């Protein structure tokens, strides 16, 4: 595989899991932020 293609695929891989993680993380924390609760324990 060409180096450029490999690099692009790796970047897309990283971005995909970044989106997955932060989508669910923001979904979890946003209600707390909206209620102005200093969230968590």
């Amino acid at each position: 595989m060409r180096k450029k293609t490999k690099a692009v695929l790796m970047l897309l891989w990283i971005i995909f899991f970044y989106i997955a993680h932060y989508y669910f993380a923001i979904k979890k924390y946003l209600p707390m932020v909206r209620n102005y609760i200093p969230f968590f324990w």
Partner: protein
Amino acid sequence: MIELAYLALLLVISIALGRRILKYIGIGFNSSLEGMVFSLPLGLSAIAYAMLFAGLLGYLYKSVLVIILALLYIALWKDVGELLRIIFSSIRNFSFNKFVRKHDIALNFYSIVIILLLLFPLMNFFLSFSPPWHFDVIAYHLAMGKIYIAAHKVVYIPYMLFSNFPSLIDTMYMVGLLLSNGILANLLGYSLGIAFLASIYKFCQRFFNERIALLSSLIFYSFPLIFMLSRTSHIDVQLAFFVFLSVYAICVYSKSKDSKWLFLSAIFSGLGISSKVFGAVAAAVIFALLVLILIRDVSKKRMDYKSAFAKSAAFCIIAFVIVMPWLLKSYFFTGNPVWPELNEIFHGKYWDEKHQQGINVMHNLRKPSLCNYLRLPWDIVTQQGKRLGNIDEDLEIGPFVLAILPLYFFVGKKDRVINSFFMLLFVYLTVWFFLSHIFRYVIYAVPLIAIISGYVIHELLKINLLSRALKLLLLFTFGFNLLFFIGANAKEFPAALGLESEDNFHSKYPGPIYDASKFANSNLPESAKILLFRDTRGYFIDRGYVWADPLTQAYIDYSNIKSEDDYYKELKRLGITHILVNNNFGWRNPLHDVITSDYRYTPEILEMKDRFLEKYTRNLYNNGDILVNELK
């Protein structure tokens, strides 16, 4: 601020004691900092063991601790002097220009990494001054030590499940409580967290390079799971620290073949098991890694079978000797050295099969299917498996497990240490899969994830096409974690900085249980013994108390209690004079989303409690959430 003075004293004596022990073993380190990273936990553990023995003999007094510290200071005055000389000369010789040149400080990515690497620990340092209030801390981590201190003895607490487990770190916190207060205990936990951070840095410096060291350290300490737990009196981060030091020592042994590092690994494996039962899982895996290393050396004729056998036996014996005091304590109090495990063999006190099943369910809601196993990495990254019981909804560690770790197999340069870390990670997560759904219980996998991530990111940053985008993504992660840090801890900063009184703070965190405890302390006689019903947080209570929790204790056996009359008779037999009921507290089962469960406070028990309260008690206090009633 007195806590700072006590902390400095404890740290200096612990490091000096640790250095003396390591000198006696004959281990040499690459740098003073690397030596200190091993010395601190070793010395602090030795002091904790000394106080454990003093407590078992009935000499748990502040004066005894002060005498022990004074004697240690006198015996170690040369080591203390040398240590202070090292610290002051490092400060004196620190040159900002040299530091800037060495780390290529400019307006660049690594400068931001260094700033954040200083910022997270600094903020956590201030937060360590926040009074303890988290659930597990005031239920048993500090509550246990407070009971021992009040009795001036390490006593059997039959209703407190966790008091009969190995609890080395809780004993360290007890030292903090004995010398000062819960804040000193927090600071001891924080100090071990900083030593952990430094150990990751030094490990990466030794085996890789400076940049991987910086990256891995920041990735590690900026995980919400780590920075939230490492400045409170929990034990998870400290357990992971001991396990990591054991792995560190095994890696150095593998390279240097110096057996003393093997002994050091065994010591820290033993200390890990002594901290938490799950440490035994980590120790077993580290031992398996050692056996593989020895088999490799035998196959390459670097050593004979006898030496390999002797070394593996030495590892087991050393770890066992370190753990033995906890086994003896448990045997002495319960009749079972590994209570509550294997109770069908040892027949230890106040435990049975039903309770063990309940605990097993509490620890592992997961169905052990292939699908659940394969989705583990996804659940660690997204926590979406919580509805299946595949993972709990707790503090997380970012996207690295899936975003970065798999890319190791596509970067050019492989490394033997990273290969072995992947093996360790695979085994840790596989064993954890069968034992628990609670991610915190496999926290010793987290430093490995951070170091592998640092290594892979360092390789990826060499690729021009990836470099800028990856740096932006990482800065986003660190910035997000920083925002989370501020949001999650904002409520504690005023109390931590002395702008809010401890009393005012505790009235909010934990709130009603603190107010009810204050009522009990001010109004109930000294001889009062309180049953804590639907709550276990007895830290603020200055009277005797007993947990009523049907799950975590068999001291009050609910299978023998059929009515409120039986309950009254049983409580009278145990000398209970009052009952504290938290009507608003429930342990929510994520699979069923109900307050009660069939293995904890069942509807029958709760209804029985209501009838009991009406027939046999008189209400003294009611703050809407919590009742305090006196038994007639």
